[in-house]
């Protein structure tokens, strides 16, 4: 799907849940519950997405084109037919990248002003 830079920028800053979901899907297609577990693991349990927050975010991200649902399924013995699997789109990856950049810039700015963590 074609998208422009301004499309990406219109979405920034990304909601926290959205950003985490994009990170969780960056390397691997996952179903909802796997995303939830991945986020919890990655944040050492600090962020636990609730079911409602997760699926509402997914719904919106599908509408925005950040994700897409895939029809490839795992081997039947591993599959649960109620599960739906999601993949990050190029647009989603671009959005995640733009958000990373935005945050990095912010961190840099704070550092210049002496706001690095661990300093007095």
């Amino acid at each position, binding site marked *: 799907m074609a998208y422009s830079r301004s499309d990406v920028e219109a979405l920034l800053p990304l909601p926290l849940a959205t950003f985490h979901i994009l990170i969780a899907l960056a390397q691997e297609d996952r*179903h909802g*519950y796997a995303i939830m577990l991945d986020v919890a693991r990655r944040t050492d349990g600090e962020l636990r997405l*609730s079911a409602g927050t997760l*699926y509402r975010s997914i719904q919106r991200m599908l509408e925005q084109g950040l994700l897409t649902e895939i029809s490839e399924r795992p081997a039947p013995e591993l599959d*649960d037919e*109620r599960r739906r699997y999601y993949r990050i789109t190029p647009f989603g990856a671009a959005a995640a990248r733009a958000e990373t950049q935005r945050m990095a810039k912010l961190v840099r700015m704070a550092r210049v002003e002496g706001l690095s963590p661990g300093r007095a």
Partner: protein
Amino acid sequence: MRFYRLLLLLYPTSFRRDYGAEMTADFARRRHESSGALASLLLWFDTGFDVLRNAAAAHWDMLRQDLRYTRRTLARSPGFTLTAILVTAIGIGANTAAFTVADFVLLRPLPFPEPHTLIRLCWGPRSGGGWGCMNQLSPANYRDYKSMTASFQSLGAFTGIAVNLVEAGGDPQRLSGATVTSEVLPLFGVAPVLGRVFDSTGGGSADASAVVISYGLWQSQFGGDPRALGRGVNLNGTPYQVIGVMPPGFYFPSRDAQLWTHLVLREEDYANRDNNYLDAVGRLEPGVTMDRARADLNVVAERLARDYPETNADAGFSFFAMRDNMSPRYRLMLLGLCGATLCILLLTCANLANLLLARAGARERELAVRAALGAGRERLVRQIVTESMTLALAGGALGVALAAAAVPLLALLVPSTLPVASQPSLDLRVLALALAIATLTGLGFGLLPAIRLGGRTGLSALREGVGAGGGQKQRLRNVLVGVEVGLSVVLLISAGLLIRAVWRIQSVDPGFVHESVMTMKTALPRPKYDVTQRRLQFYNRVLTDVRALPGVQSAAYLTGLPMVMTGRVTGVVIPGREVTTRFRDDIASIRFVTPHYFRTMGIPLHRGRDVEDGDIQGRTPVAVVSESFARQFWPNEDPIGRTFESRGGPRTVVGIVGDVKVRGLERDNEPQLYASAGQVPDTAFINDDPKDLVIRYTGSVGALLPAVRGIVRAADPEQPISDVRTMDDVVAGETATRRAQLRVLGALAAIALLLSGVGIYGLLAYTVSQRSREIGVRLALGAEPASVARMIVSQGMKLALVGLVPGVLVAYWAAHGMRALLFGIDPADPATILGAVALVFVMTLAGALVPAMRAVRVNPMQALRAD
């Protein structure tokens, strides 16, 4: 698990459909992983909170999306949007305004604590009678009713007064109020904002020269200064002291009361059981019903009839809740108005539904595309309802604004006999009602097309193209237009009948010539003018000077203007005839007049002579009587020279004049009796004093008024002038309430006609656009354009006929209900019905004209090529 699935029902259907199964699976897994009662409890708590929060958020997201979409689609068709909002606003506005007034007059409790226990008690015929007070109580009867009944927590007496307030340096003013016994003000349960009310100790003899003033008078006369308390004021030449100020919104006995003085009844007041001038007001004991109190009063009435047969033999009482002190005509008028606005609401709803149906038809393809792209039926219905709700709520808001502007126009429909403000304000109840109507309208009439659409969101709509109108939908729209026509017929006929009633009332001969007569009141205060001779000097001086003014043809004084002073009756006894009871036929209305009264008012003098300057105390008391008086008491005899007794003395008939509608154009009138102003006994009650000056003039009234004011001021500088008006105004006032109602009803009928015309137009225009292909074929095959036009017009006429018949029937039924307002006009008055039917046909023709012309102009080639 079942409980979790129930919880999921809180989410929007589409969300549940997409993610419900997955969420259930997740939940099952988490439940499996959590062990122990505490962990399980925490999970449920966590989940419940999550569902509540996110379900609300999901609904809100969807609503926001729908609202955005609605804004875009409505902005694309501003004509439709504006029409729909305006139509809804008219329906809701009319109903909000009518309900506000009806609620205020008929439903809302009076503005006093425990208002349902407040009652009024007066004297009246034993057999019962009309509404309100039939006659007043004498102090003796009041005392007996008060002491011999146990139903009342408190009972007090009052009588209306009008006093001249003279302030040094200011113009004298005429103020209305009441003189009340010490029980009256406290029994309302309303405390004064300042000071106190009358002292009931010491047998009520304290505070004889104290006055309690209204909030309005406190503001206007004392600028709201708290130091007004204790100030002296001069009322009718007697010094009084202000002891209290009642709160704003306290109106008693009527809206115009501005002050209250203390009524102290002395032993001598109880002597004459026939001296009726008191009204009683009271509060029922807790738990006592109206019926029980009435039974209690009946026992007293019977006992009084036994003990005092000469005065109480045939007398009873009228007893009613204070809430009900109004003419039943108001109730009927307001109910009629509410009925009319309800018609308008139904009509606007039908109109709105039609608009939405037509729009839905036009958008079928768009919605089918959206459905094909995966929008579920629920999603589409939701979208359509959001749109209709947006329209209805916007219309409702505009309607409430319209109602706020319209309510003051309806103030004439608030009876002045109720102790309430002259104008209701829009309150929360009414706003809630408006919101409810708007919601119902939006939901009801949005769902209708939505449901019809939902059924056919398949590919069929895509394939069929624009020309595919469901036959069923067309039928529904026909019915809706029929309903619109029917409702407008009901309104047209009702308004027409009421117009005819007003015409008929206006054509009633009042018995006098009301054009070119100016009147004003100069009520001479006691004790300054306590003897007739002194008052006569004042009248003579004023009348002599006024008659000398250029442009004045004639002038006179009298006790009270016809149609303004409607009461004041006296018993008539013919010597030698059996005395009958006082509530039967031997009653006449009495006025004391100066010479030239009949000439001034244009009342024809049929025989004998007018009252003359020589008819003064010490000479034979004379009377001029009306024709009906002569007919009733001396049928087939010559009344001139006959004597009769009334007001305690004999009178000799010297002249016969025409009858006058003293009680008003719409009411039955007693025969009239006129006595000489020069022969008012010195002991007479102040109400008998002539106080109204009537002047017949030529030329402009504007030049006359200052000259007359100057003459009164020269005669007595402290004498105020009040109630300046023409007899034209008085006669017009007779129909003012009716005309106010009629204006509203007429406007509603016009709106109804217009809306149903628009409805017919819309439907026919739609038909023509749908059938353009068929029409093209007909024209191509050689059909006459005239026959095509006839086809369209006749379809319109059929629509009108569908509505006409039930409309006329409902109108007849409605007219029957308001018969009391029709003043004898037949509810099935053929002229009115024919007129309404003719109007509907004209409207139909007008509505069909443009579509018919469009049909004739259909280009066969284009129509066949299109689509």
